[in-house]
């Protein structure tokens, strides 16, 4: 199916400049991922916006082009998605053949659709998200550990989360799911306790359980299930102990 689509892109030259919306006309196959659409706009002899002015190529990130690396997360019509697994045809339905592409909010824009996700990684480092001992192997836990390791660090969950904002005490889902995996594998009791404490302070106390994170997770990680498990391990256990005293 070939139709004409107006592609609206929120652009920004660098982190210090103001952002603006720029429109492009696209005529071509609609059954293509958004990344392919961006490539098609860029790979022309002259890149012209809808007013016919020649403009610079659109900056975006990508790596695997098949939904395995999380590099290409952007807002597509307002929702956080991976641009390589989202198809144009599914996005222009009722909006009158328009599509809006924006960089993730809550992160610093580097240029156009590229943002700096360093803060996510810093949180994991700050909250000691690793194991100190050799990994414990418990056959019943392997599937869960595997699912927690599927996280792409794409940031979709943080964008959708009503509780997360940059620089806050609440660090969002990546901390919760990593904690679950590492507590499940850790033999060092002291570090296990540290992970639980960090979870309480930096996740449990800030999460209002909207669970929008699970709706937008491109890997379909069972987040709700993992949070319940983490709460059982780190919050309720403590509470029970305290109530006994």
């Amino acid at each position, binding site marked *: 199916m070939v139709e004409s689509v107006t592609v609206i892109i929120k652009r920004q030259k660098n982190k210090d400049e103001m952002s603006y919306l720029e429109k492009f006309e696209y005529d071509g*196959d609609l*059954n*293509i*991922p958004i*990344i*392919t659409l961006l490539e098609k706009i*860029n*790979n022309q*002899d002259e890149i012209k916006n809808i007013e016919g002015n020649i403009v*610079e*190529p659109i900056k975006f*990130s*990508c*790596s*695997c*082009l*098949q*939904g*395995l*690396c*999380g*590099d290409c997360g952007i807002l597509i019509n307002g929702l956080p998605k991976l641009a*390589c*697994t989202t198809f144009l045809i599914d996005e222009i339905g009722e909006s009158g053949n328009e599509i809006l592409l924006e960089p993730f909010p809550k992160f610093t824009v*580097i*240029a156009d659709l590229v943002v*700096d*996700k*360093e803060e996510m*990684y810093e949180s*994991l*480092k700050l909250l*000691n*998200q*690793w*194991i*100190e001992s*050799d*990994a414990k*192997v418990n*056959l019943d836990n*392997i599937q869960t*550990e*595997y699912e927690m*390791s*599927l*996280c*792409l*660090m794409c940031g979709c969950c943080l964008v959708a989360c009503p509780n997360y904002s940059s620089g806050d005490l609440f660090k969002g889902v990546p901390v919760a799911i*990593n904690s679950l*995996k*590492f507590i499940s*594998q850790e033999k060092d009791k002291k570090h296990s306790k540290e992970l639980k404490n960090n979870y309480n302070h930096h996740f449990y106390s800030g999460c209002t359980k909207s669970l929008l994170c699970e709706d937008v997770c491109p890997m379909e990680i069972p987040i709700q299930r993992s949070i319940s498990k983490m709460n059982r391990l780190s919050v309720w256990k403590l509470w029970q102990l305290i109530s006994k005293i």
Partner: protein
Amino acid sequence: MKNILIIGSGIAGLTAAIKVCEGGGNVVLASPAHSERSQSVMAMGGINASLNTKGENDSTHDHFKDTINGGKGINNEKAVKKLTSNALNVVKWLGDIGVSFTRDENGNIDLRNFGGQKHKRTAYASARTGKQIVSSLTALCRKKEAEDSLKYIKPWRFLSLIITNDECIGAILFNENTNEIKAFEADSVIVATGGMNKLFGKTSGSTHNDGYVTAKLLEQGVELANLEMIQYHPTTIETPIKRLLITEAARGEGGRLYVIKDGKPWYFMEEWYPEFGALMPRDVVSQSIYKVCNDLDLGIDGKNQVYLDISHLPDEFIMSKLDEVYKTCIRYLNLNPCNEPIPVYPGVHYFMGGIKTDENHKTNIKGLFAAGECSCQYHGANRLGGNSLLGAVNGGWIAAEYALNHESNNQFEDNLINNVLNEEKEKFDIWSKKDISSNSVPLFKIEENLASIMNNSLSIYRNEKDLNNSYDELCNMEKIAIKADSRNDYYSYIRLPSLILLAKAMVLAALNRKESRGSHQRVEYPDLDDENFKKTTSLIFKDDNIEVSFK
């Protein structure tokens, strides 16, 4: 304390970083993106180790033999010895650091069948072995970062090595966000930058692995090897985004290849190779698919495609062990592989050739080491599935040990590093002030042309005429490239001339190997020629000339 600079943060780079820290060294790990974006996460199938838990009498010796046979005898035997005997330790270590391998009913790490190997030898973590390994390695690196023995810097691109008196003493890197250019001095440098994908446009791998580092190293006097050995993965699918891989595990778990002959499915691999069937080494499967489509004209719907069928496997089995195959087919082909066969054809997947190293991952330049897909030692003329993850971990591990042991008595002038840095900065200044003439060609067009030349002349079967033409076209392209309009992208501007040089070296390697071996099939020379070519193709850039020899 030794300072080691590691370029690239996929599985080889991460492993090297951890092992340097464990050995008491300090690491700067530089990469254009976080490890989650590396090509390593795309490795699905598994990692080979003769764990011998299936009662099949497997041994490291059998693993060694299969690897050499798969590589048609031009692997570095000493390196393969170490690879296959270390494999057991590598997989044990990965388990210890928390990789969630799939386990069998006895609690052992489960093993599956992979191509070119009769024993069950491929350990795996459901459908995403690479991702699971990266996940555990990054956690460990995080810990090393918190302990201050590792500094992980992004997004830094490699520009060039700092070499003096034939010894590497660091590298110049470029920050793509800020345009900053900086010198990083080091006691030794480990390069772990992946394959040469960009030469072919898009391959099954990551767009980050463009081959620039390999290309620049060639330009700077580093010896490359076996560049003509390019693995075409037998089963890739055509989609609007690129040719996507369908993992070998699909065949390892029972998938069959067929075309329609006389109105009936013809399982050509099973007829031609009754012993291994569709699980012959990848080079043989790809060549067979080529023959079925081109020589016998039996491609499905008259196109270059055959069917890969997994629909006879139970749905639950596909959903758990091959879920990525299911997702990819549904998403990009709107096809349910539980009910229908998948149309596939070979596509460029892996580069056996690259930066030549010895069994200790040393290059021909002192203080410079290479590991992972960018390096060449283990795989010879064809890599076995499951040996790349193994090669990456083992290579990073060994490179770290030898990088730590490297002793330099190089005396260089204090201002040497500054001089090299200033040269790179001047290049950038000249570029940024350059006027783009109105008739200059957009750079992406030259890159597209480069990819089309390479795909055409270095396809599954190669011939002298196409290779010669390609070489001439590449020589012409060099002249256009320096005038290209890079549209404010410095990195792609400096990358292009180096990639063209690398492409020329690859074509020369293919022209000079006048025989057919593994993934290198020459139409004019269809046979193996052990006497002249059971050797490594060596490529050195000297006095503006690429020298090809066989060693």
